[in-house]
């Protein structure tokens, strides 16, 4: 872990405060023709907006001394994992649950520094087991993949 100064905490506070303001601005557009109750749909969003803005400004003014940010190579592996999960979501309807899950498990095993053959084997085993459990036992459909069914 590498420690950076209070800058990161300040930045997070600024993001939080801005998010609060954005939530509040969006809430002003929740107009209804006639109100079914005296409170309306705006009250809770406004409460959220105020809390986030106040907390964000508070962080901005009194940041923590140090925030533990991940070192470079860990950050790269995390980004790779997040990218892999998004690719998994995109690919699943297309190449099907079985192949996409095998690949995402193998990829994740590799990121955790496992041997790639072992990862692939783990992926195949899991995909098979999950397919049997969900499709055969629970009768919950999982995508076969449009690529193969066309």
């Amino acid at each position, binding site marked *: *872990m590498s420690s950076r100064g209070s800058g990161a905490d300040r930045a*997070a506070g600024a993001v*939080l405060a801005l998010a609060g303001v954005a*939530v509040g601005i*969006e*809430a002003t557009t*929740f107009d*209804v023709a006639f*109100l*079914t*109750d*005296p*409170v309306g*749909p705006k*009250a*809770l*969003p406004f*409460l*959220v907006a105020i*809390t*986030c803005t106040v*907390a964000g400004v508070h*962080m901005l003014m009194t940041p923590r001394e140090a*925030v*533990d*940010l*991940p*070192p470079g*190579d*860990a950050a790269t592996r*995390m980004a790779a*994992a*997040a990218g892999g*999960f*998004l690719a*998994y*979501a*995109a690919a*699943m309807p297309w190449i099907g*649950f079985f192949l996409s*899950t095998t690949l*995402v*498990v193998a990829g*994740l*095993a590799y*990121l*955790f*520094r*496992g*041997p790639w053959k*072992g*990862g692939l084997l783990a*992926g195949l085993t*899991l*995909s098979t087991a*999950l397919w049997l459990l969900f499709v055969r036992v*629970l*009768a*919950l*459909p999982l995508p076969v993949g449009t690529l193969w069914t066309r």
Partner: protein
Amino acid sequence: MDSLSQLLHGFGIALQPLNVGFALGGVAVGTFVGMLPGIGPINAIAILIPVIFAAGMPPESALILLVGVYYGSQYGNSISTILLNVPGTASAVVTAIDGHAMTRDGRGGPALAISAIASFVGGTLSIFGLVLFAPVLATWAIRFGPAEYFALMVFAFSALSSFAGGSLMRALAATAFGLWLATVGLDPNSAIPRYTFGRLQLLDGMDFVVVTIGLFAVSEVFQLLEETDGGRATAAAFGRVAVSGRELARSGWTMIRSSVLGFLVGVLPGAGGTIASFLAYSTEERIAGASGRFGRGDVRGVAAPESANNAAANGAMIPLLTLGVPGSGTTAVLLGALLGLGVTPGPLLLEEQPDLFWGLAASMYVGNAFLLLLNLPMVGVFVRALQVPRWILIPSVAALAFVAVYAVNGSAFDLVLMTLFGVVGYLMRTFDFPLAPVVLGLVLGPLMEKNLRRAMALSGGDWGVLFDSPIALVLWGLAALSLLAPLLLRRVSEELADSAGLAEASGPSDED
């Protein structure tokens, strides 16, 4: 003795073969997830929910399974805490002090045995409390109107925010984030879309399973990627899992006192197992005085927190079932599961669905007995699971989480949302925001808004109605008090954590 006959009826339900199987399965899964890094009861329950919905299980069986995972994880957690000095949750941090000291002395076996027995005592005594007090609270809670419910939920939020540890501001922001997520989708009163970003998939709102798995499980995967050693954990040799009669006798009163204390703390929203185990440990340390070897491997130092956190976990079921207001992230997920099963917890639950409540209470006795039987002779088997290399374990859990998220709506879009919540959860952990208030906000948000609007509709827009009744005033007072209480409590717990000398990097999650 109406409760007794009801409980006997409950045993009739709990002892049906299927329900015995679910109780056993639940506690076994719970022991595993409590022990292994990176899963935790909240993820295990969230992953099981789509499976339960798909299988069309009756609500009482589903609840027996999920609650089994919940209290079973308290047992499992102490195994890795004692043997590896890696407390998986904050509530096990105190157990590590004397538990690991005993392991270093080569007395890991007795430590495991006393923890299993203490957990059993805490578990069973608190079920007794549950059976005794839940009906009382239910008859009392019937008088709750929308204004009282609103105040109660504010109390739950403020209590969890202030006991979450760390900065109150950040915890309140986390609560607000959860409440914001709750507003996403069509507003039930006016039918206008809120924060849907023009996405049809968001009109139905955010599913709490997707959010929970993203925030907790996926962010945990990111966090574990940070730890560069891919190696496996090696547990110390622990010998025979048994405890001498003398040591057991010495910790008898400790277990009973800690169970009562843990139960009472558990009933309060927000406090939960962490506060319960800290309080029980420091109380027993004071009672033992100079005769104790607290901090250097005293059996009572293991017995106290273990009885207390199991009792607290069961005590937390009271507000969940009789008021419908959970006080922690995990019980919030349980509430979400109940609502999804068509069960509305509240004061009428005991009357309208006695099978559910009494069946559950009886099954908790069955499950705790299983846990004692499982834990004493089979710890070796569980410990072997700790040796599974991380590169197999974590991707496997991730795959389970993915398939559960997909199964919620049968949509790959939820996997995208899950990943986004994973990134948000990781950032929240990095910047010291607690995660549990987000889940509580998401699950309770719609109920809170509904009760606020109903109270205001009844009063014709007069805000004074929120402070009209004595019950509401007491709840507002408790909410205010809970924001001040941790200042005092934190001083005690920081002192203890310092003496524990635990590595910060082990990063116990904020969930119990």
